[in-house]
């Protein structure tokens, strides 16, 4: 029973990370229909940027964290401006190929700068974060994951639901010609969705870096788990991405706990294939509203 609870806690916290990273992916897809194949590398970029600020520059953790936020946000704008904007209006497949190319380029750059070794952050999480609950112990890193995951999901949830800019972003995803006719700055919305994708991917990248260490290949591979997550949750649904993330996190952790760690790595993809065959629009995809 204790083992079960432990796995449950681990699964949910891992799932929150997946959810966070999937949120960024879904943002881009919803606003511009682009499948971002560079998503895995976004996690890695975030994790390494934090490494630079925290370990290399030895800045206080909070400051390093804040700078990473600002840095990845700005980077999102720059990447959109330089590489994606010139392709607006081109075939979607060309844009998707561009993201593939970007991913490979990012990975190469990170390898060039940081090498292929595993780096790690200084141990900065206070021990007091650890929660002991009977025989169940929730390590500080899981507590931190919970806090970051829920904090950012709530912040972005409110942003999309209530802020004007969030509503404009959803309007572009919903009906782009109508949004244009009301003067919504569609290109700005695309840029903002890239910036947000960079930020949330960075957040999950940092936490995964704390858990597993920071390695270009590993983080990129974990980032690709966004595919099972969004396929499960429905590509165009933010709520679905969150649920999908938690479900994949749980499945993965329980498989690892009760069956084998080898199976753990591939189980999300087995789920992906299964879902695609049974319910191609995802379990929680938007219910299509049709007029008759």
């Amino acid at each position: 029973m204790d083992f079960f609870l432990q796995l449950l806690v681990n699964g949910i916290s891992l799932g929150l990370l997946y959810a966070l990273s999937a949120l960024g992916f879904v943002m881009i897809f919803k606003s511009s229909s682009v499948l971002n194949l560079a998503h895995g590398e976004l996690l890695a970029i975030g994790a390494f940027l934090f490494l630079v600020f925290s370990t290399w520059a030895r800045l206080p953790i909070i400051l390093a964290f804040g700078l990473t936020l600002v840095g990845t946000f700005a980077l999102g704008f720059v990447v959109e401006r330089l590489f994606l904007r010139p392709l607006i209006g081109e075939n979607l497949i060309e844009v998707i190929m561009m993201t593939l190319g970007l991913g490979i380029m990012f990975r190469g750059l990170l390898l060039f700068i940081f090498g292929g070794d595993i780096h790690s952050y200084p141990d900065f999480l206070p021990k007091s974060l650890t929660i002991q609950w009977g025989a169940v112990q929730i390590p500080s890193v899981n507590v931190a994951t919970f806090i970051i995951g829920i904090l950012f999901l709530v912040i972005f949830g409110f942003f999309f639901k209530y802020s004007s800019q969030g509503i404009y972003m959803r309007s572009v995803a919903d009906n782009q010609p109508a949004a244009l006719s009301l003067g919504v700055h569609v290109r700005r919305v695309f840029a903002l969705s890239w910036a947000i994708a960079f930020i949330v991917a960075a957040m999950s990248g940092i936490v995964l870096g704390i858990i597993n260490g920071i390695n270009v290949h590993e983080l990129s591979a974990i980032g690709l788990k966004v595919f099972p997550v969004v396929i499960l949750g429905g590509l165009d649904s933010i709520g679905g991405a969150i649920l999908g993330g938690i479900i994949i996190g749980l499945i993965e952790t329980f498989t690892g706990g009760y069956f084998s760690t080898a199976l753990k790595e591939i189980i999300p993809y087995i789920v992906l294939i299964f879902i695609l065959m049974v319910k191609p629009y995802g379990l929680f995809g938007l219910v299509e509203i049709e007029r008759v």
Partner: protein
Amino acid sequence: MESCAFQLQVVAVFILISTEFLTMENNIKLLVNNISVVYSDVIQVLKGVSLIIRAGQIVSLLGSNGAGKTTTLRAISGLLKPENGKVTEGSVEYDGKPIQNSSPEEITRKGIIQVLEGRQEFKYLTVEENLRVGTATRWGKPFKEDLELVYRYFPALQARRKSLAGYCSGGELQMLVIGRALMAHPELLLLDEPSLGLAPLLVKEIFQIIRRINQEQGTTLMVVEQNANMALQIAHYGYVMENGKVVMESTADELRENPDIKEFYLGTAASGALKSYKDVKSYKRRKRWL
């Protein structure tokens, strides 16, 4: 004392004359000057269209399917670009400044808002969120008062404000898209077939509200319509398009009395029975309609 009064009189008369003169010259809100529009670099749709919209007026644009009415509106609002269309000749001047081929972001911020054909709501946004998108031209603020204004014109929307637009009726949606455009504080509002597919009673209500918006908000309007009867009732001036050209223009009263318009758009021919389409068409050809 007397001379002072006389001077005042002279000044007053002078002011009167000059304002008369000025408004005659300057009340042109929008000038469409001989424009040609081409889609995808090859499909020419407008061939030398000219229009004038005077400030504070309602101008209606009539014409059969495919005449180029929507294209004309797009040429004004900048929404040709996303359709891969372009104004290749002529100019569109708004408040005296050329705006042809500007981006929709720029043009909406000058105060021209087009309400698209076919009620393009945001399905997955609530009614109130739909309305809030109308504030995009001014970074979203403020919007509370504008919401109240829209709900005053369209009380039906207030009752539905929390429900998804995708589940609203056609009539509610038409109110929604007009209300959404009002949120943007338009100076010139372009409405594309607001009566499409609505019950006659509702059409009447919508047109009354359009007239009220014109009178109370001072909004200049251009209304594209198939329902010529309704459109000419509220309009001051009207244009008729065929095949990418303006074939007739006149005050709304004159258009209502025009035998061709009666025949073709109002369905109230003087002779009683409607002539066949072919007759009408050849008759019109004689009168350089086609």
